[in-house]
């Protein structure tokens, strides 16, 4: 029998895996993928809460509408972010984060 704690633990683990990807990897594209994993972990959390706190015998659909919006915004963000990455690659010919140091102190 799965409890809410199981779902939240899985969501938290997925979030930390995504965060590890953002902090430890040095290729921009993999950092972006870690970002998507973090967004998905948040979605899982929201849907779990929606199911475990039902309203009038149905899941709380406000949370699922929010998940719908988050998925939409994440898709728009990926499109714009990848366009920026392509423009960066055209300017610098590299995708390694450590080569982008013009603003470095």
């Amino acid at each position, binding site marked *: 029998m799965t409890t809410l704690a199981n779902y939240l633990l899985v969501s938290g683990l997925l979030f930390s895996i995504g965060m590890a990807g953002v902090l430890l990897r040095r290729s921009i594209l993999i950092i972006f993928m870690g970002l*998507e994993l973090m967004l998905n972990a948040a979605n899982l959390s929201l849907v779990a809460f929606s199911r475990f706190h039902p309203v009038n015998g149905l899941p709380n659909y406000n949370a699922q509408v929010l998940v719908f919006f988050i998925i939409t915004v994440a898709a728009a963000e990926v499109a*714009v972010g990848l366009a920026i990455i*392509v423009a960066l690659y055209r300017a610098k010919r590299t995708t390694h984060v450590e080569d982008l140091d013009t603003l470095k102190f």
Partner: protein
Amino acid sequence: MQLALFWVFAILMLMSGLGVVFFRNPVSSAMSLVMAFVALAAVFVTLDAFFIAVVQVMVYAGAVLVLFLFIIMLLDLRAEARRPVNLLAWAGGGLVVSGFLAALVKVVVSDPAFQIAKPALSNPQINDVAMIGLALFHNFNLPFQIIGVLLLAATVGVVVLSKKELK
């Protein structure tokens, strides 16, 4: 049966997440990301969120991932060459991640509000799409229209960012 299915798909999703982070080849990372998205959709189905599961597969696995693969192909990314590892940076990153995980586990395990079982629904066959549609268009109509404007802005922004300099 449902308990076993939840753990199978949750473990699959977490293993795919680790694959995304630890593969050297970016195409392997993208393939692991697909598996993570689809396993997450299966976990959504165990939560009776059928519409969200389908939207997850359609938008994430169908659109976002194809975009990633196009960019990998466009930039012709090879496997990441091994550069000297900055041990201090790795230790700092590992510390942040494990600190966050420890705090999360402590809160989730100790709070009794989270140890509840799945409440029964009034009708096992819920008309998910109709209920989400009602909630979306009755209560959240304005944010829905604003999301439309946001998508327009994102599209225009992508086209502007992709233009080559006019000589």
